[in-house]
C-alpha cells in the first residue's frame, strides 16, 4: 500500500472544460484561486467568499459547487466546468443567448454562477418546472434583476434546447 505523505505544495491534475490540466497548488489554495489566478479563467467570480452568494459556482463532476469553498486539493481527478466552457464552440450556449434576450443580466456579476447552476439543472431536467428552476438557482444571489428575467431565460433556453435536439 502506498502511503500518502503530508504535502504543502503538490502538482494535481484535473479536467477543466474538457482539457486535462496539471497545476501546482498549495494546501491553502481554493479551487477559485486556481481557476482565476493560475488558469486565468476569470469568468468565475468571487462574491462573498463564504458560500452564500453563488457567484463562484462551477460544476464539479456535473454538480454545482461553490468554488470558494472547495479546497484546491479536492479537485484532483475531478471534472470541472466553468462559464468559459459554455461557448467553447465559438457560439453562445442557448442559455447565454436566452439570458441576453431576456435581459437577465444587469451588472452581470452573478451571471457566470447563475448560468452554471442553470446548466446543471437543464442537464438533469431538460424541461424543468418553475419550482425546479427557482430551487436550482436558490444558491445564486442576484441583487439587480429580481430573478424573474433569469427564470424566464432558463425556461426559454429549455424550450429552445428541446427544439434543436
Amino acid at each position, binding site marked *: 500500500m502506498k*502511503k500518502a505523505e*503530508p504535502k*504543502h505544495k503538490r502538482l494535481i491534475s484535473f479536467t477543466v472544460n474538457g482539457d486535462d490540466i496539471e497545476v501546482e497548488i498549495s494546501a491553502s489554495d481554493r479551487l477559485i484561486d486556481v481557476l482565476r489566478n493560475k488558469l486565468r479563467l476569470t469568468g468565475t467570480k468571487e462574491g462573498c467568499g463564504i*458560500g452564500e452568494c453563488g457567484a463562484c459556482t462551477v460544476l464539479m463532476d456535473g454538480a*454545482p459547487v461553490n468554488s470558494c469553498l*472547495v479546497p484546491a*486539493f479536492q479537485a484532483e481527478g475531478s471534472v470541472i466546468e466553468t462559464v468559459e466552457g459554455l461557448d467553447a464552440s465559438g457560439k453562445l450556449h442557448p442559455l447565454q443567448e436566452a439570458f441576453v434576450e431576456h435581459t437577465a443580466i444587469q451588472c452581470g456579476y452573478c451571471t457566470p454562477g447563475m448560468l452554471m*447552476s442553470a446548466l446543471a439543472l437543464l442537464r438533469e431536467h431538460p424541461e424543468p418546472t418553475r419550482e425546479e428552476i427557482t430551487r436550482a438557482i436558490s*444558491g445564486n444571489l442576484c441583487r439587480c434583476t429580481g430573478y424573474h428575467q433569469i427564470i424566464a431565460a432558463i425556461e426559454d433556453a429549455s424550450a429552445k434546447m428541446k427544439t434543436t435536439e
Partner: protein
Amino acid sequence: MTLRFIRPETVREAMEVLHEHKDNSKIVAGATDVMVQRRSEKPVEEKPLLLVDITGISELSYVNFQNGIVRIGAMITHRDIARSAVIHDVAPFFADACLSVGSPQIRTRGTIGGNIVNASPAADSLPPLTALSARLRLISRRGSRDVALCDFFKGPYKTIIEPDEILKEVYFRAPEPSSRCAFLKLGRRESLAIARLSVAALIDVDDSGKISKAAIAPGACLPMPARIAPAEEALVGKIPDEEVVNSASQEVGEEMVRVSGVRWSTEYKKPVACALTKRAIWKALGVDVD
C-alpha cells in the same frame, strides 16, 4: 504558518495519519464549514496544521438498509440523502431536513458526517436524527466505539470526538411503517438561511387513534440536540386534538427557556417554537394547518 494536506484513500490509512498527527491535524470532508472557519481565523495565531481530507475514502460513502437498521456513511452528502430512495421511504423528514441545508452548491459538498461533527446547534440534519434516536460509530487506531447521538455533544460546536477519531457512520432503526414524521424549519429567508428554529416530529398512532409513540426534537433553540420529554409525554396515550397538540407544543417553548435561559430573542423565539412544533405535529399527523 505551515499548512499541509494529505488525502488518505482508506480508513486504515486515515486512522494512521490521525494517530501520528493527532496534535495538529483537522479532518476535512465537504469543507463547507472548514473553509468558512479558516477565513475568519487570524493567521498569526495559527499553528502548523495538517488537513486530513477524507473525501477520497470511498468506503465511507454508503447508505445501507439491513435488518431494520439504516446505516449512513459519514461521507454521504446532503444531496445524496435528499435523493436517497431508502431515506425517503423510511424517514422522509430526514430527507426534507437535508434538502433544507444551505443551497444546492452546499448540499453537493457538505456531508452528513461533517454536519454532525461540526455540532452547530442550528444543524438541519440533527433534529430528525435526534428524533430517530440515531447512534454514531467512531473509529480510531485504538478501536471503535458507538455512542448515542445525544451523548456525542458537549455543547455548541463541542463534541466528545477525540483528535485521532473519525466518525464512520450514523445509524438508526427504521421507524415503524405506520409512523408519520415531519420536519419544519424557519429561516430568515428560503435558501442559504441558517435555521432560526426547526422542529422534527416522529409520531405513531395506534388502531384506536391514540398516539402510541412520539419523538419531538427542536433545532436551533437548545445548546445541543435533545428530545423534549414533557412534550412527548403530553402526546402519548392521547387522541390528538387541538388541546393535546397545543399543550405538547407549549412544552417545547418552556423547555427552551428552561435550558437556554431568557435571552434577547426569547420574546420572539418562545411563541415561535410553540407554533412551529404545533405545525410539525399536525403535519406529521397529516393535517394541514397554517
